[in-house]
Structures are given as structure tokens and as C-alpha cells.
């Protein structure tokens, strides 16, 4: 039996897991695992042909269990997601090695378990991405869910609580998918993709609706789509630093992968479009699009109110997922490209942001936005990475996030969807507001006395951050690089492929060439710099030499604006934060609690024989009637 490249990759990944498992407690285990991730990435790069024009690489691994065929294979879609997965795993693991690891162990963390969980996550994600039929998809799906649970829960305390919440949601989602799977099976008699593809054509509308709801809801839980988003932010935020970088970068995108595979590729956007909601003008596709934009808006504005940097980022992670879904649901060439490209872009900047915040935590011990400030003079490189990251996150030129958002906007514009367009822009504006709060409260403003002696993050942490920052910028400058992969993914899932160039996209209704845009932007900066620096040399002053209406400032008095940062905005919209979703969640829990109480009461009754007799009588009566 010859091993295909996919076999090699999976074996490599399995080997990584074993290394983490057995010699993970040894010396330099982190570095070994990191190198192995690098090896996996190289193996993946050997499959690069998939990313440029498709094809399929099958695994020689396949089973038949209880009459079900299980097989695994890679295509452009899997390759694209696997690239992001392995890239973020490599960099997160690298980030974890060395200084971070030591301080984490010193605080009582279990570094062996951490590397193990990471390796497990990567392996399970690869298995999911390689799934060749719906059953193997579900198997991969559940593996990813539970592996994620392990990574989220391992920090203990608050993290475990958040992970518990996650797993409850994930189980609910998983069971929805399971149910959907059963329904698909009942009508197609098989879970092979081509069989399902045929069965979908003859499915009744009701069934298709049901399936869209079950699959959409199930996959949506992982993506953190409204109203299933509550678990995500605390779970990702409380995961140990590099873990949250990894999870934030790719984990919830597995939901998008599954949506692409099942809803877009198998069911087809056209079929979904034909599902009308009676008595309204909207159909299932509109519904998805609206869910997407609400997923953009609500979590983004929740992020704005967070006072913990990690939570803020994690909430944005949910919001950005909305752009991806929105682009995919719009489903024209530009929208699909935008949505898919955003997966890549989001992974890069989200990982960079989480790493930068983790670096700050590593040096200062806190991520509380009210307890930091002014760190730019002590951690300038981290500042730079965070800055590049937030520009990407906010979707401003010259970083890569701009390109993908631009594509999504353009598609909405082309399709004539003003409200969705508006909602997407509101999300972006909200993002700008909240990321400024992030960078301001950590790096700008007044440096606290206790942070006077803080040092820049160590190089083992700095290097992956800088690499990510470089990727963010380069793919912003040459979006054609990832767009090539995206175009082949679009072909695979049956969306129209976009017409890309190295610098952006070509279109009769307005093109984008980032090379030029960034070129003039930097030329502009250059001219600005000439104007600015032509004036006399500046004299640096201490932060306490500052205007305070004539007041004498001293180091013991905090002269920083951080809390309730957007007070004016909150005067108006503060009342709109009703916590409705939290309320909903609490209500469901109380309902279950109440029912549970009732049921326990039922079992606690002493006169059980009464039940027996009454049941018997009831049943008899029922029979006679």
C-alpha cells in the first residue's frame, strides 16, 4: 500500500500527537512539537497543487462500519482550511515555546496537557477537513468539539466553566447535526456526498427547511452565530494565551467549513434560496444573511463594552465570523471570495492580536484594560503587532482585513442589498471604536508606575508575532496570493470564481488594486513625514509634563481615561444592551432546572405503587377504548 500525501499528513499529525503524549513532559518538548507542526505544514505544501486549481487527494484510509463507508480526502476547500489550521498551530505553538511555557508552568499550569490538547486539536481538525462523506464529517466534527473542550478547560477555574458552557452548546449543535444526518440518511439511504447530492434534488421543501435549520444551527453553534454565540467569547478568552490565539484563529471557522461543505456544496445556494418563509418576503438565504449581519453587529458592540483585552478580542472573533458567512451567503464571485478570504485574514490578525495581548499579560500579569496603559514605550514591537492586527481587524487599508471586507461590501453593493451593506458597515465602525479602546488602554496613555520596568516580550514570543504581522501586511499588499487559493475553493464548492489579480480584483464595476492603494498611502505618509520632520527637532517630554488645567501631576495619581470609554455613545445605546440572549440562556437553564425538580419530585414520591396501579388502569382503559 502506498501512502498518499494525505496519509502522510495525517500520520505526521498523529505522530505529533504521540510525541506530545509520550515525551511531552521532557525537555524542549514544545520545540519538538513546533517543529513537527512545521513538518506537517511542509507536507501540506507538497499538496499545494490542490490550492491552485483543485483535484482531489484521497486517503488510503477507509472503513466500512455497520454498512457505512467512511473515507477521507482533501480538496481545495480542505487544503485552504488546513493551511490556516497548520499555520496558526505552528505559530501558536512556537509562541508557546520557551519563555511563555516557563512562566505558565511556574503559575501551576500543565504544559504537557497544553501541548497535547493543541496536537489533538490539530489532528482532529485535519480529520474533519479531510472528511469524504457526511458520517466522517460528523465524526471529525465531534472530535473537534471535544478536543476544543480539552484545550478550553485545561486552565481550570473560570476557563473550565466557560468550557462547560461551550460543550453544552457544542453538544446541542452536534445533536442537531446528528439529527440532520439521520434525516439525510433516511431520504438518501447513504451518507456519501454524491448520493446526498442526488437526494437533495428530490427532497420536499419541508425536509429541506428542516435540514437547513438543523445543519445551519448545528454548524452555527461552532461559528458562534446568533443566538448561539454566548459560549464563545469566555471560552476562547480564558484559554491559555497561545491556545486562545489558535482557537481564535481557526477553531470556530470549522463551522464555516462545514457550512460550505453541506449547505453550499451539497444543498446548493439555489436550493436554499428557494425556501421561502410564508407571509414574508424573505427566504432561507436571506435569513442566513440576516443572522450573519446580526452576528456582526451584536457581538461587536458587546466587545466594545469588555474590559478584558482577551474577552474583547474573542467577542470580535464572533463578529468577524458574520462577515465570512455574509460573504458566502451572498454567493456571487466577490462575496464568496470576500467571505473565504476573510477566513484567512481573520486567522492571521486574530492570532497576532491574541499573541500581542498574551505578551502583555506575560509581562504585566493582567489583561484588564483599566489596569494598563502607556506600554508603547516599553513594548514597542508588541504595540506594532497589535496595531497591525487591529488595522486588519477593523478592515482598514493597508492591512489584509480591508481586502476581504471590501469584497463583501462590493458584493452587497452589486447585489443591491442596502440594509445588509449598512449593517456590515455598522459592524466595521463598531470594530474601529472598540479596537481603538483596546490599543489605547493597553499601549497608549499613561504608563503606570508599576510598569516602568516592564520589558519587551521575549524573542520566542516576538518572532511568531512579527511573522504574523508580516503576513498581514503582505497579504494586504498582494491579496492575489490568498485569492488564488480562494478562487479554487470557490470552484470546489460550486460558487462562481472571482477574477483576481496580484493586487486585488478586476471588475467592470470598479476594481481594487491594493498595490497602488498602498503605494500612494505610503507615498502620502512619506510626504507627510517630510512636512512634519522639516520643522525643528522635537523635545521629548515626560508623560507627567502634561496639560491638566494648571494642576501638578504626580505619578501616584492616575491621569488616564479608560473606563466607560465611549461614555457618550453609551448614554444613547447603553440602554439597548438588554442582555436578551443571556436572559434567553438563563431562561432555558431555569426551565430545565424546574423540570428537573419536577422529575426528581416524581421519583421521590413514596407511593410508587399508586403510579403502577394507575398506569396499569390507564393503559387498560386506553386499550379498551
Amino acid at each position, binding site marked *: 500500500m502506498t501512502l498518499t500525501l494525505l496519509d502522510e499528513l495525517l500520520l505526521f499529525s498523529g505522530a505529533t500527537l504521540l510525541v506530545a503524549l509520550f515525551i511531552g513532559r521532557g525537555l524542549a518538548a514544545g520545540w519538538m512539537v513546533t517543529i513537527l507542526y512545521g513538518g506537517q505544514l511542509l507536507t501540506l505544501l507538497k499538496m499545494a497543487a490542490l490550492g491552485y486549481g483543485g483535484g482531489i487527494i484521497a486517503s488510503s484510509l477507509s472503513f466500512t462500519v455497520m454498512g457505512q463507508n467512511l473515507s477521507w480526502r482533501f480538496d481545495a476547500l480542505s487544503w485552504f482550511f488546513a493551511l490556516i489550521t497548520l499555520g496558526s498551530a505552528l505559530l501558536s505553538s512556537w509562541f508557546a515555546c520557551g519563555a511563555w511555557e516557563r512562566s505558565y508552568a511556574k503559575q501551576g499550569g500543565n504544559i504537557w496537557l497544553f501541548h497535547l490538547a493543541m496536537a489533538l486539536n490539530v489532528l482532529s481538525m485535519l480529520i474533519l477537513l479531510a472528511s469524504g462523506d457526511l458520517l466522517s464529517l460528523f465524526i471529525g466534527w465531534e472530535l473537534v468539539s471535544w478536543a476544543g473542550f480539552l484545550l478550553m478547560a485545561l486552565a481550570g477555574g473560570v476557563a473550565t466553566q466557560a468550557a462547560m458552557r461551550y460543550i453544552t452548546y457544542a453538544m446541542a449543535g452536534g445533536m442537531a447535526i446528528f439529527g440532520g444526518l439521520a434525516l439525510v440518511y433516511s431520504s438518501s439511504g447513504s451518507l456519501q456526498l454524491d448520493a446526498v447530492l442526488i437526494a437533495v434534488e428530490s427532497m420536499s421543501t419541508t425536509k429541506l427547511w428542516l435540514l437547513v435549520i438543523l445543519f445551519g444551527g448545528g454548524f452555527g453553534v461552532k461559528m458562534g452565530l446568533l443566538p448561539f454565540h454566548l459560549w464563545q467569547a469566555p471560552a476562547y478568552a480564558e484559554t491559555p494565551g497561545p491556545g486562545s490565539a489558535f482557537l481564535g484563529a481557526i477553531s470556530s471557522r470549522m463551522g464555516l467549513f462545514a457550512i460550505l461543505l453541506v449547505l453550499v456544496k451539497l444543498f446548493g445556494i439555489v436550493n436554499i434560496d428557494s425556501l421561502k418563509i410564508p407571509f414574508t418576503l424573505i427566504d432561507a438565504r436571506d435569513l442566513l444573511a440576516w443572522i450573519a449581519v446580526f452576528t456582526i453587529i451584536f457581538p461587536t458592540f458587546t466587545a466594545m463594552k469588555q474590559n478584558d483585552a482577551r474577552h474583547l478580542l474573542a467577542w470580535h472573533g464572533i463578529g468577524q465570523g458574520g462577515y465570512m458567512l455574509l460573504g458566502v451567503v451572498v454567493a456571487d464571485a466577490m462575496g464568496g471570495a470576500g467571505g473565504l478570504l476573510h477566513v484567512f485574514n481573520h486567522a492571521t490578525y486574530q492570532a497576532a492580536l491574541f499573541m500581542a495581548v498574551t505578551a502583555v499579560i506575560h509581562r504585566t500579569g493582567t489583561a484588564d484594560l483599566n489596569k494598563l*496603559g*502607556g506600554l*508603547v*514605550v516599553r513594548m514597542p514591537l508588541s504595540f506594532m503587532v497589535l496595531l497591525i492586527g487591529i488595522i486588519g481587524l477593523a478592515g*482598514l*487599508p493597508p492591512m489584509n482585513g*480591508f481586502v476581504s471586507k*471590501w469584497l463583501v*461590501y*462590493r458584493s452587497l*453593493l452589486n447585489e443591491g442589498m*442596502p440594509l445588509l*451593506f*449598512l449593517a456590515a*458597515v*455598522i459592524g466595521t*465602525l463598531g470594530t*474601529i*471604536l472598540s479596537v*481603538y479602546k483596546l*490599543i*489605547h488602554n493597553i499601549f*497608549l*496613555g499613561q*504608563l503606570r508606575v508599576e510598569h516602568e520596568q516592564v520589558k519587551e516580550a521575549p524573542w520566542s514570543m516576538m518572532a511568531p508575532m512579527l511573522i504574523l504581522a508580516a503576513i498581514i501586511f503582505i497579504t494586504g499588499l498582494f491579496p492575489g496570493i490568498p485569492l488564488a487559493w480562494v478562487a479554487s475553493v470557490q470552484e470546489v464548492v460550486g460558487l462562481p470564481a472571482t477574477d483576481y489579480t496580484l493586487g486585488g480584483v478586476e471588475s467592470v*464595476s*470598479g*476594481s*481594487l488594486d491594493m498595490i*497602488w*492603494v498602498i503605494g*500612494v*498611502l505610503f*507615498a*502620502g*505618509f512619506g*510626504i*507627510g513625514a517630510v512636512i*512634519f*520632520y*522639516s*520643522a*525643528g527637532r*522635537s*523635545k*521629548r*517630554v515626560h508623560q507627567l509634563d*502634561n*496639560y*491638566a488645567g494648571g494642576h501638578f501631576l504626580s505619578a501616584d495619581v492616575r*491621569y488616564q*481615561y*479608560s473606563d466607560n*470609554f*465611549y*461614555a*457618550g*455613545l453609551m*448614554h*444613547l445605546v447603553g440602554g439597548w444592551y438588554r442582555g436578551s440572549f443571556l436572559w434567553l440562556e438563563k431562561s432555558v437553564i431555569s426551565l430545565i432546572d424546574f423540570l428537573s425538580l419536577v422529575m426528581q419530585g416524581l421519583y421521590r414520591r413514596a407511593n410508587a405503587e399508586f403510579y403502577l396501579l394507575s398506569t396499569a388502569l390507564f393503559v387498560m382503559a386506553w386499550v379498551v377504548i
Partner: protein
Amino acid sequence: MAPLELLLELTLMPLVAFLVGMMMVLMMRRIAARIQRRVGPPLFQPLYDIVKLHSKQTQVSHGLIHDIGIVMAMGGYIAAETLLPVPGMNGIAEKGGIITLLYLMMIPSLGLALGVGQCANPNGSIGIARALTAMLAYDIPLVIVIFGVAYAAGTTNLVDIIAQQQAGGFATWGAVQMPLLAVAGLIAMHASLGKQPFEIYIAPAEIATGPMVEMSGKHLGGLFVMQCFQLYTISVLYVSLFLGGGSTWFDFLLKSFLVLAIPASIAYLFPRYRTEDLLRLMWKWPVMLGLIGVAFVL
């Protein structure tokens, strides 16, 4: 297009923008003075201010980011000018389009925000918080307006949008075709100028000019330069979207100055809004007008 010619355009466009922008600043100040029955500043006052600020002996800086922020604030607009077609010069307008332009116009705000942040002055931070809030307020109607115009034109390319308007003369102007959007755009434009009654983030008596509180010398001078660009960009954008751009320079400048004169004439009659009132106003009337306008377009 010959590279040299393009380079010339790319150099000339910001330069023109700066010169015209300075005149616009002067016009705003003169209008304000006239309304208050004053004489107002002399012709070259904006230039005097900028030169003086740049030649200050003391250039107080709070750090590298403080400096870079100002560079970004100027540079972002300088770049934006090359995407904004003027009579006879298109620059690289075809490579970006209106959405890119809109986003490039956010770069200066972000740069300023960074620079102010490092000043470690809470007044400045509050000012930036308010400025960003104001951006959230006026960008929503602005985006609706831009959506409407771009959708009606079927392109995001400003050159095409202008060409379409010029094709049929006055009757094909955006303002005639889409009057509701034009009105909404005017209101949003006024708010984006940051003048009364929407100058919540300057608020001298309240937060000591907010972002500018720690700005001195060339930093403040940079902001003055930025203001010139800002006025120019906003008014020319409006002219391009609704008033058919300019076929000749005279035509173009006339329209631009007239457009700017409208908010300038209104501004100094009113006191300042509170932040939440600005939001409420912006999210109500121009949004409503804009949405109705877009409904017509669709």
C-alpha cells in the same frame, strides 16, 4: 498612461488639494466672522498659522507614536486625494473606487487617534472617544448615501460616476436624480466636518480642544494641514457624487466652495450638541432620508 504623467498627477493632486483646502479654511473662518459681524482673518491667515506652528522653537513631543500619528493624519489625506478625480486628472481613482476612498479617509482619524493616545492626556482620549463616536454617527448615513449613488451608477469607480453625471448635463446630476440622498449626504457631510453644532470632540470649553490638547508646534501645524485636506476632500467628494464633478476648474472650484459654504453658514448659528444627541440626530433624519432615497434608487 505614461508613468511620468501619472507621477505628475499624483504630485499635483495633493498639492492642489492643499492650496484649495487652505482657501476653504479661510472661507469657513470668513463666513464665521461675517455671521458674527466681524472682519475675519486676512487672506493668508491659514498659511501664517501653519508656517508659524512649524517654525516654533519648542516642539514638544510625547514620543514616536505622537509624531507618527500626525504623519499618518496628513499622509492618509494626501493619499486620499489621489483617488479623488479633479478636472483633467484622474490619478489612480480607477484602482480604488469610492469604498477604498471612504476607508482611506478613516486612516487620518486613526493616525490622529494614535498620536493623541500617546500624549497621555485624558482630555485627548475623551476627544478621540467622542470623535470616533461621531464617526459612528455620521458614517451610517454617509454609507447609505454612497451605497445609493454607487448602486444607481452601477459602479464604485468615481470617474465613471462623474462621467455619467456629466453626460446629460444638469438633469443627470446626482442631486437632481436623487434629491433625498443629496440632502442626507449634506447633513452627514456637515457632521463629518466637525464644525458646530457637531464639534463634540473639540469642545474647547469642555475638554480643552480634545485631541489637540497636547498638540503644539509642528504637531498642531500638521493638524492644520490635515484640516485643509479634510475640507477639500469632503466637499469634492460631495461634488463628485451629486453635482456632477467639474468639467472645468472654474466650475469645479465654484461648486466645491459653494457646497462647503452651506454647512459653514449653518454651523456658527448653533451651539454644540451633546454626543448622544448627535448620534440621535444622525441616526434619525439623514438615515431616514437616505433609506427612502435608496428605496427610490432600487
